[in-house]
């Protein structure tokens, strides 16, 4: 990541192009990740609750804890790498970077999987919170990406 925070970003056209491509692909990833989770879990609270906790009347089994943990494990790793890359470039290109937005992006990415676990073990309302946090960190990341495009 040190390679991305070099002061030569404005003068080095090759590095600028590479950073632009990285941001473009990460933007594509963010959109596809939203679509994938929409199909897998669902962003409608009732669909998400049914997927995670099951539905006795419809004979739908709850998701296995091992599967849920695996999903959380993968999502956490991907979100931390994606956010870190975008935030590091964002701070570099935007001189008056919005610190509150950086907090919001990381906190929502951290709270999303925790909400999912709490929803699985304690109360359905946390699954709705997961939907909110999950979409929120994606929107923050997309904002970082759009700002990077505009500034570079």
């Amino acid at each position, binding site marked *: *990541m040190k390679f991305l925070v070099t002061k030569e970003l404005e003068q080095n056209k090759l590095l600028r192009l590479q950073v632009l491509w990285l941001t473009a692909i990460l933007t594509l990833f963010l959109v596809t990740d939203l679509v994938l989770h929409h199909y897998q879990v669902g962003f409608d609270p009732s669909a998400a609750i049914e997927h995670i906790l099951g539905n006795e009347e419809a004979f739908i089994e709850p998701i296995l804890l*091992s599967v849920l943990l695996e999903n959380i494990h993968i999502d*956490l790793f991907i979100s931390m790498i994606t956010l870190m890359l975008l935030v590091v470039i964002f701070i570099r290109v935007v001189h008056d970077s919005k610190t509150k937005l950086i907090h919001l992006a*990381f906190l929502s990415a951290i709270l999303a999987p925790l909400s999912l676990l709490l929803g699985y073990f304690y109360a359905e309302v946390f699954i709705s919170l997961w939907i909110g946090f999950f979409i929120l960190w994606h929107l923050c990341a997309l904002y970082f990406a759009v700002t990077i495009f505009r500034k570079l």
Partner: protein
Amino acid sequence: MPQYGIALRYFFVMTFLVLGSGLWMFVTNTSLSLEGTSSHYALKSFYGLLETVSPHLFAMAVLIFILTHFFAIVSGVKHENFRLFSLLFFTVMLLSNVSGFFIDESSLFFTLLKLGSTLLFILFSFFALYKLFKMT
């Protein structure tokens, strides 16, 4: 710039959560016992093991590089101290992934190697996170 510090600290928290969820899965699958570890890995097919090992080789190597490269670029850190640490870190990660392929019901050595190297990997990660938290 303080904003890099903020991003880094969140990154470390998320790394801690990734390790925590991984450890949780490992404990659930193996019960951290010799019998549990041996039966879990001996029952897995080559394809099943590869499905786990392949993404972990990539993710763990990236994670180790990101964590350890800070020791190389932060001023005031004695490189000699962390050269051996980085070498051991990568080695236990490799052993942790590869040893699973050699475990069968009677192989005590590889079961111990899997358990030991995985726990060492977690320990090294927490140590690196602790050191980096103190530095930032």
